[in-house]
């Protein structure tokens, strides 16, 4: 399966988000791939508000089944969430459960003015009513596969298909 060029998708995503950003818009990337994409968007859009990041492990709905994942990251919210327009950024949107967890976590920092969602790839398979406002590309991926964003030592982003 030929996968799209992740760097080109980041640029396309920035172009589609650009007309809708507000001077106070804040981006929040979801660890790990979503933070890389958010980093690209933040630079391309020239946003003033510092970039936020979330590790949603503490809010996942499968904790009682699979416990905590290794390699937890600290969530970092370097701006006031209260009344702030927020865009959640993730690499691959699948069931929607990660986005549900991210929204729950954001509300523990305050009440945002609004939350939108920007994703690099929408692979379908939703289990919750989550719909992104901006998508760089939709892609059919079989249920037994995971689509992963990877970053090389030189900082170049690429997509890879692995067995789930």
């Amino acid at each position: 399966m030929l996968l799209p060029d992740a760097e080109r998708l980041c640029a396309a995503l920035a172009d589609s988000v650009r007309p809708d950003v507000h001077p106070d818009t804040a981006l929040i990337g979801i660890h790990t791939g979503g933070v890389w994409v958010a980093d690209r968007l933040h630079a391309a859009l020239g946003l003033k508000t510092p970039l936020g990041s979330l590790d949603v492990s503490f809010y996942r709905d499968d904790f009682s089944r699979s416990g905590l994942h290794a390699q937890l990251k600290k969530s970092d919210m370097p701006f006031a969430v209260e009344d702030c327009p927020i865009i959640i950024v993730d690499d691959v949107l699948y069931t929607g459960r990660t986005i549900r967890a991210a929204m729950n976590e954001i509300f523990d920092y305050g009440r945002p003015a609004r939350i939108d969602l920007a994703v690099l790839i929408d692979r379908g398979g939703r289990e919750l009513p989550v719909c992104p406002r901006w998508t760089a590309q939709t892609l059919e991926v079989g249920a037994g596969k995971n689509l992963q964003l990877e970053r090389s030592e030189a900082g170049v982003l690429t997509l890879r298909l692995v067995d789930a």
Partner: protein
Amino acid sequence: MLNPQLNKHGALQHLLTIDGLPREILSTILDTAAPFTEVAEREVKKLPLLRGKSVFNLFFENSTRTRTTFEIAAKRLSADVINLNISTSSASKGESLLDTVDNLCAMQADMFVVRHAMSGAPFLMAKHLADTGQEHIHVINAGDGRHAHPTQGLLDMYTIRHYKKDFTRLVVAIVGDVLHSRVARSQISALTTLGVPEVRVIGPKTLIPAAVDRLGVRVFHDMRAGLKDVDVVMMLRLQNERMKGALLPSPQEFFKYYGLTADKLACARADAIVMHPGPMNRGVEIDSAVADGRHAVILPQVTFGIAVRMAVMSMLAGS
């Protein structure tokens, strides 16, 4: 023999002692604790990990700090916390420990945090839960007799790693009443497991256990010699309530030889940190000027203790 703290997948089922836990598990607990420290800075200081779970604090011995920090940790994880004041409960009417446990299990307990004057009480509880097919209920040892106080040992390791980064280059001294201290035993186990190359214990002969050197520590009776070039000074509380017989001439004399003063601390490295598990006896094991001085990290220890206990509870609940 199987480690009774680990389940069949090698994950932490109970936290009873640091003895016998592999370095990977200790490191995972410390790594897991790090993101929990950030929760204290949020508007809503709550995570949903233990939502719907019941945590019973069973303190058969008095404690304020440990019980409170366990309570805060469990509440920040959204658990329901039930504190049992044992001195006014059925135990004082003659109920056995295991009958108390059975009754609390019948109230759908998910986790016990237990402190007991008898070494081994938390092991007995964990074994009883296994024998009665209730492996899904977890036990955390919050201090048993002279044996162990694993979460104190872990929060001490978290504090050391926070300030000193790398365990494998450190000289650490544990000072004072090692004989009666469950904290010291947990500290020694954790330090040696995490690869600290030199652990020293310093104290009078009457308060250092026989054969403590078998645990891989160097023994000093002269405090200045023992503190020379150390990176971390871990003070212990003089445990008057556990002492039977005359082990010490007087607290004043103990302070003269083993109390940490600025003068004695000057033997340690210039960037040494000073720790104490609390509660402190100022003027007995530590001088106020040191306890409140720039080397002291005693209050950060308390704050880190909440994150470490949140990490342990989350790991157990998710195992």
